[in-house]
């Protein structure tokens, strides 16, 4: 029977292999099987975006994917965004410009912002607003987030990584 699935996936550049129940969600796989608890569960109904990760270069909500669906894919979580012990310019900008208050939405916000900046290196305020409209901040700290994304865009243009 196919009630168990073998998941073979690269997460943040590392290969993992686990056998899990068919119903396991990607977000639970990341958190409970791999211990990557930076990806958060907010609403669990696909509205809040706290569970946003990148799968093969595009953002997805990991609470709306089954773990079995990422076999053969490359997943990036918040734990893989920084490199060499140095914060990513987006993370640094969120820190510098109060882009986070309680921090719960932050991993999803950063992944969505990262996707935006991959496509559009110099987004307008409206474009930033639209890019993060699938991520809710219950602290309503959106101004700081917008500012952080704007600053990070400028920083990344100056020093492309």
């Amino acid at each position, binding site marked *: *029977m*196919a*009630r168990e*699935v073998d998941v073979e996936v690269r997460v943040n550049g590392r290969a993992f292999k686990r056998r899990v*129940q*068919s*119903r396991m*969600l990607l977000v639970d796989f990341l958190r409970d099987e791999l211990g990557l608890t930076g990806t958060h569960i907010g609403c*669990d*109904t*696909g509205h809040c*975006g706290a569970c*946003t990760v990148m799968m093969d270069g*595009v*953002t*997805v*909500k990991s609470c*709306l*994917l*089954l773990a*079995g*669906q990422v*076999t*053969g894919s490359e997943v990036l979580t918040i734990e893989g965004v920084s490199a060499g012990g140095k914060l990513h310019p987006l993370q640094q900008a969120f820190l510098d410009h109060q882009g986070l208050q309680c921090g719960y939405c932050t991993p999803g916000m950063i992944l*969505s912002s990262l*996707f*935006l900046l991959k496509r559009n290196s110099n987004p307008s305020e409206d474009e930033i607003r*639209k*890019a993060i*409209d*699938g*991520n809710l901040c219950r602290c309503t700290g959106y101004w700081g987030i917008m500012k952080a994304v704007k600053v990070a865009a400028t920083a990344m243009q100056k020093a492309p990584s």
Partner: protein
Amino acid sequence: MFDYYAPSSLGEALNLLSSAEDAKILAGGQSLITLMKLRLTAPASLIDINRILELNYIREEDGRIAIGALTRHDQLVTNPLIRGKCILLAEAAGVIADQQVRNRGSIGGSLAHADPSADLPTACTALNAELKATSKDGSRIIAVKDFFVDFFTTALLQSEVIEEIRLPVPSSRSGGAYAKLTKGHNDFALVAVATECSLDSGGVCEAVNVVLGGVASKPTHAFETEENLLHRRIGDSLIHEAALKADAGLSLTADPRVGQSLKREMIRAFAERTLRMAFLRARGAA
């Protein structure tokens, strides 16, 4: 619990669909997984078609635009062929939910799900789409007007999967536009209007579809508006008069989120707005 299958070819998926117990196709999953989590549905078998890469394409062939069922909403938004020839579809896809959902959700899945408030069923109705439905016994073509049957109900058989969506290539003097009213940003439509039209060389309306979403059990033509415009020279006052009839004869389904009079007003307003934009685009002026 369910059995999970992830076939890598359409043939394999079709065999599973007819042999696995109580099987459901898992496309983008942006509605199905939520429904399963809410225990609104509990299929015994899930057939994940996301590894069937041959179902993801957009190409022009034989006078039509062919879109593979697994094409993601975001691809409809960004694809140059769709943007150039079917801006209505790009506009409708661009206001679905949010970026993460558009990255994963698929056109075939949205049509098969047949939510009357969803964007792509309304847009595809206005674009006179045809659906290629395939089972292990072969394929058939279903016109979009025969495809949507009722709330979340389509003409698709249990043994069939949508393989392709076909749109007739609009003439060079065609245009379209999409508008929707939502409660929250990029939510499901309380009211949506998808309009597609074409003009002849003399500025006379050759064809026009004004299709309403979120108002009935399936996408619904504003027939009186269409009749008022067809074969007539298009001008602002005619558009205004015709749009006033967009809700004529329409019995709205009860909607706890919004009152009927507002809904009717928005149907008329969006009909006018999308008609103006669609005809401007048909003239090449926008």
